[in-house]
């Protein structure tokens, strides 16, 4: 009797806000990926772009969702989780639509989930310090949130703002209940640890953006630091007090 090999359904969630220049290349790159026993489906989510992202997505024939209003990055990614849950995907990947996260690195971030070693995998550019390393001020912010997370939940995620992540079913269900709207990445770590999920960080190569403009224009923005810190702190207190 042969071993029954069940194929895993993998959804790659790509939030797009004014990414018309990047979607076609990204789509082709994802289509080329072959992972054993896995079926990889890219899902683009057009977050009410003001450019022709939607037309581009239609042209290339990609599967996409079209937000009726601007939901910001958090609401958009969360929508992807809802789609993954409804359509019974085993793993959801979150990948930026700007080409910073090379699809060729996908197998690295799903491996720990396929091996049942983690619920959440975060792709990090700081473990091996290869590829695009970002600017000084950005790195300061990333480091700050990394330390804040360490202080609150006791785990260290070096690339705390990395949006290149993989989640298993358990993590997806939890993120449908709660996911922050803006700059969700550092806060999500605190949430997921409080939900007793296992997070691992794996080294990946990242690039600088292909085109378009980043959603975070100035990482030093005081607003960003204060907002995310406060959110994270309040979320942690709330989850601790609810047991």
């Amino acid at each position, binding site marked *: 009797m042969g071993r029954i090999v069940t194929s895993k359904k993998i959804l790659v969630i790509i939030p797009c806000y004014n990414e018309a220049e990047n979607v076609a290349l990204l789509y082709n790159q994802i289509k080329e990926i072959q992972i054993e026993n896995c079926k990889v489906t890219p899902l683009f*989510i057009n977050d009410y772009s003001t450019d022709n992202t939607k037309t581009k997505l239609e042209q290339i024939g990609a599967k996409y*969702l079209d*937000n009726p*209003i601007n*939901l910001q990055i958090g609401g958009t990614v969360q929508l992807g989780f809802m789609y993954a849950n409804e359509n019974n995907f085993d793993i959801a990947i979150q990948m930026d639509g700007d080409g910073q996260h090379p699809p060729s690195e996908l197998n690295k971030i799903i491996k720990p989930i396929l091996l049942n070693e983690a619920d959440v995998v975060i792709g990090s550019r700081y473990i091996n310090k290869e590829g695009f390393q970002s600017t000084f001020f950005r790195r300061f912010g990333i480091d700050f949130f990394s330390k804040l997370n360490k202080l609150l939940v006791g785990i260290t995620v070096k690339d705390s703002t990395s949006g290149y992540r993989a989640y298993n079913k358990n993590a997806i269900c939890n993120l449908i209940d709660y996911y922050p*709207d803006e700059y969700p990445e550092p806060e999500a770590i605190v949430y997921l640890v409080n939900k007793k999920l296992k997070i691992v960080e794996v080294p990946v190569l990242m690039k600088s953006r292909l085109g378009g403009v980043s959603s975070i224009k100035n990482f030093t923005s005081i607003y960003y630091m204060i907002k995310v810190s406060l959110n994270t702190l309040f979320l942690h207190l709330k989850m601790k007090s609810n047991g």
Partner: protein
Amino acid sequence: MDKIQIVAIIAVLFFIGLISRFIIRGKLRTEYSIIWILIGLILMVFSLWRQSLDLLAKFFGVFYAPSLIFIFFFFMIFIFLIHLSVVNSKQHEQIKKLAQEIALLKEKISEKNKI
């Protein structure tokens, strides 16, 4: 009755009338109108019974009676603004949920139309 008292009473009646009109026309939900009706009634008491403010000020030991009005209304407005922020946050979440559901439904419909 002084002229100012008559003016005050008419103003308060107008105010209460306006609130009632908004409620009847469905432009103001009853839960948000309660505070405004309450304020209207308090204003009415002060307009009909002029000494009430002085008595109240004396009771609290306030030297300048009108400052009592300022502090009271400042406090009320402050609380109401916080309440509105809470309502706003709740609506933000509800709108987000609705938009997400719409996006999912739109995709389902277009999938059906393809077949």
